[in-house]
């Protein structure tokens, strides 16, 4: 215990260097810009900025990515409030009350609420990061081949289920990802699979390339095919971006509720910030003493949604850091950043690399303060950026995609892979398939394969070895729940928010 406290303290000391503070401020600002641009999601933003962190020290690199993540999730609320277009799907519920407030000339108040609740949501979510992550990492030591197999299966089913409109399409996307994950040297015998004599494929398809293609490049194709229209002008507002003491007190219970819900949703793989914001909004409405305000600009609605989506951030890091299972697309990108730094997710992050990990945690805490400051002071400026025309956005993102994928190995073959995945992502989205499931299957496929074949190897082909430990059984049950989750989620969500907004959120989920 004392040792952990010491590590926590040292984390703060090493996070407080000029380099790291600069990284936090820059990352948050960049994240807010990405977040408030409709069309650029948090995952895209982190994927595009990933190559920038290659040459940074591991802790600084991760802090930048974490800062972009938090910034983008908050940034989405700016355009949601001012132009009634959520900058990221995670702010879809914020638009409901936020825009009403704007129409009443209370945009400043709405922005202040969003900023204040995002800050608390993010800050409180760090508590779970500090407490659960090392515990779960201990558990990870008990995960042998059979458990790793079920862990992979669990991740796949729940992701394919939760984040897709139909299970069939979700599972199809996951299966496609699994097929792609077989490219390269096979993990058990070292046989070359689907490499067609290309040595660069020996280590499999590079996940970072694949996700830049699937998330960012495909978005460029989608944006480019639409007629470019000027966005609605951001509403001018004159009121101050502050909250009164009474207002802060009013939203306090809402923030706490949203934090708990958002945090749990974050830890569970599959359900991301876009679902959390609706749940947060709904509970704010249910528990409110002034229900009649809802629909006419209730600050509790904005607070509920924004605290919940930022509470997801800290929670979602836990399964990624400890088990190597990214719960949704942003953490999949973050995991890419971790691996590029030569770090393997798992218990070693809390033993051998504990100093780095706790610096990152401390950075994540400090990032929330930067978000509060930059968010409050810079709202007006960011509001203007949210109107940036697609005509400018498209070429910029394309350039970043090409540079980003080239930068991984400084090899043109990665750029080709990225473009192939861009086209694939475009087609998948046209057919309503789930691009996030492909990326996650690409990461989880080898884990499951190695686990299954390893377990069978040790047991000499006896399938029974997969059903022996209690951990295996827990994961099997969770996988079955995952398969049926679309039915459950569907019912749940329709109850939670009006039908049309759910459809929109589910559709956008594939992007987030």
């Amino acid at each position, binding site marked *: 215990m004392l040792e952990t406290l010491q590590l926590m303290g040292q984390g703060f000391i090493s996070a407080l260097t000029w380099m790291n503070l600069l990284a936090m401020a820059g990352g948050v600002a960049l994240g807010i810009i990405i977040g408030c641009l409709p069309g650029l999601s948090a995952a895209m933003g982190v994927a595009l900025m990933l*190559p*920038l962190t*290659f*040459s*940074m020290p*591991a802790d600084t690199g991760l802090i930048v990515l974490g800062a972009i993540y938090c910034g983008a999730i908050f940034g989405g609320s700016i355009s949601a409030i001012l132009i009634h277009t959520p900058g990221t799907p995670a702010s879809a519920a914020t638009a409901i009350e936020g825009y009403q407030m704007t129409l009443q000339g209370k945009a400043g108040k709405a922005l202040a609420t969003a900023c204040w609740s995002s800050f608390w949501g993010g800050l409180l979510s760090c508590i779970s990061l500090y407490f659960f992550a090392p515990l779960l990492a201990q558990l990870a*030591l*008990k*995960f*042998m*081949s059979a458990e790793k197999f079920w862990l992979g299966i669990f991740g796949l089913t729940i992701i394919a289920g939760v984040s897709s409109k139909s299970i069939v399409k979700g599972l199809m996307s996951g299966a496609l990802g699994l097929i792609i994950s077989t490219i390269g*040297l*096979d*993990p*058990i*015998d*070292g046989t*070359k699979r689907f490499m067609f004599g290309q*040595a*660069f*494929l*020996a*280590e499999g398809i590079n996940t970072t390339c694949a996700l830049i293609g699937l998330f960012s490049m495909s978005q460029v194709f989608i944006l480019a095919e639409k007629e470019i229209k000027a966005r609605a002008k951001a509403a001018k507002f004159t009121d101050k971006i502050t909250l009164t003491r009474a207002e802060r007190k009013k939203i306090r219970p809402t923030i706490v509720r949203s934090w708990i819900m958002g945090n749990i949703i974050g830890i569970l793989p599959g359900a991301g910030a876009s679902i959390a914001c609706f749940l947060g909004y709904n509970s704010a409405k249910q528990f409110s003493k002034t229900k009649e305000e809802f629909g006419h600009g209730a600050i509790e609605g904005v607070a509920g949604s924004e605290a919940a989506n930022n509470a997801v951030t800290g929670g979602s890091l836990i399964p990624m850091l400890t088990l190597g299972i990214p719960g949704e697309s942003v953490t999949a990108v973050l995991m890419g950043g971790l691996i*590029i*730094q*030569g770090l*393997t997710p*798992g*218990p*070693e992050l809390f033993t051998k690399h504990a100093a780095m990990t706790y610096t990152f945690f401390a950075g994540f805490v400090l990032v929330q303060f930067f978000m509060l400051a930059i968010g409050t002071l810079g709202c007006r400026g960011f509001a*203007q*950026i949210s109107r*940036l*025309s697609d005509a*400018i956005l498209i070429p*910029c993102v394309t*350039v*970043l995609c090409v*540079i*980003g994928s080239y*930068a991984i*190995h*400084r*090899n043109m073959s990665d750029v080709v892979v990225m473009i192939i995945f861009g086209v694939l992502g475009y087609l998948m989205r046209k057919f309503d398939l789930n691009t996030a499931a492909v990326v996650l299957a690409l990461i989880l496929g080898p884990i499951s394969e*190695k686990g299954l074949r*390893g377990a069978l*190897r*040790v047991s*000499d082909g006896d399938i029974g070895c997969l059903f022996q430990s209690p951990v295996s059984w827990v994961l099997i049950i969770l996988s079955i729940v995952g398969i049926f989750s679309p039915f459950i989620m569907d019912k749940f969500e329709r109850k939670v928010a009006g039908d049309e907004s759910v459809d929109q959120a589910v559709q956008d989920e594939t992007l987030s």
Partner: protein
Amino acid sequence: MKKLFALILALCMVFALCACGQTAAPAESAAPAESEAPAEAPAEESAAPEATGWAPDGPVTLVVAYKAGNGTDVTARILAQYAEKYVGQTIVIENVDGGSGSIGWSQIAAAEPDGMTIGFMNLPNFNSSIVKGLGTYTTDDFAAICNHVTETSLVLVRADDDRFATIDDLVAYAKENNTVASTNGAQASNHIGAQAFANSAGFKYTDLPQGNTADELTSLLGGEADWCVAKVADIAGRTDVRALAAFSTERLAEMPDVPTLGEKGYYDQWLGSSRCVVAPAGVSDEVIAFYEEAFRLTMEDPEYLEAAASFATDYKNAADTAALIQQQQEFTESLAEGFWYE
């Protein structure tokens, strides 16, 4: 509004350039202050080995076939930083990873043999890449300069596993029961070690490939594997695993209580991994002699030795290194026949 667009466009350009600049950064000088290097170069010339008749006339590129931050990259950067004094030029590390190292080694083999490009070769991974057909090169496409780091393999068990007090206990148990040994990948270095040990002791086991050494050790600690083979540096500072024997011809200085496999009557050759410096084939003898001398002086430099305290620097001259590469190649090729179980 137009001004703002222009500003944002400019911002995007800056980011784009940053991305280029940043990725080029690992390739930049390993020395803390690059700008000082050219100015000091004439003065430093005297420190460089003289009378070989050749010296680089510009920055030297040192190719590392793994990504920045990898074990080889870390040790290469320390070597490069202190070698600049003796080479008299900036040494630029270029990380060319992918293809299990083969992409980087292809690049060294294809480089102009003018002495301006040299690189790190990792044994036995390099040899495996040839045997597996990942690279189109052979050992003849490289000219050895020197050896830099050697890591010896060890046979490991859990520290609290009271079944195996000595290596003989493990062999006796393994002959009666089927044991599981985790490895860092199919036919990777630690798998080769496990197989060489099992063959020499005359027992069969089940190998469990894990892809990397961290997972290999987790598998051992979790009880799924009974024993495994890993290198000295992998277990530095760990108390949860115990070494039973070393793959060496004599006992290791850092662990004098651990017997060698040879003295117990098992595999009696050295086995482990080596990182050596090579040039593309076709470089002149003067170039080889120049770098051989420069790196020898570096590896004797007290400042270098202080910075390199965490790993086992093991200088070998060009001839010995060439012999080592050849020996490892023949050994790796010999594994193809009758070494592995079917």
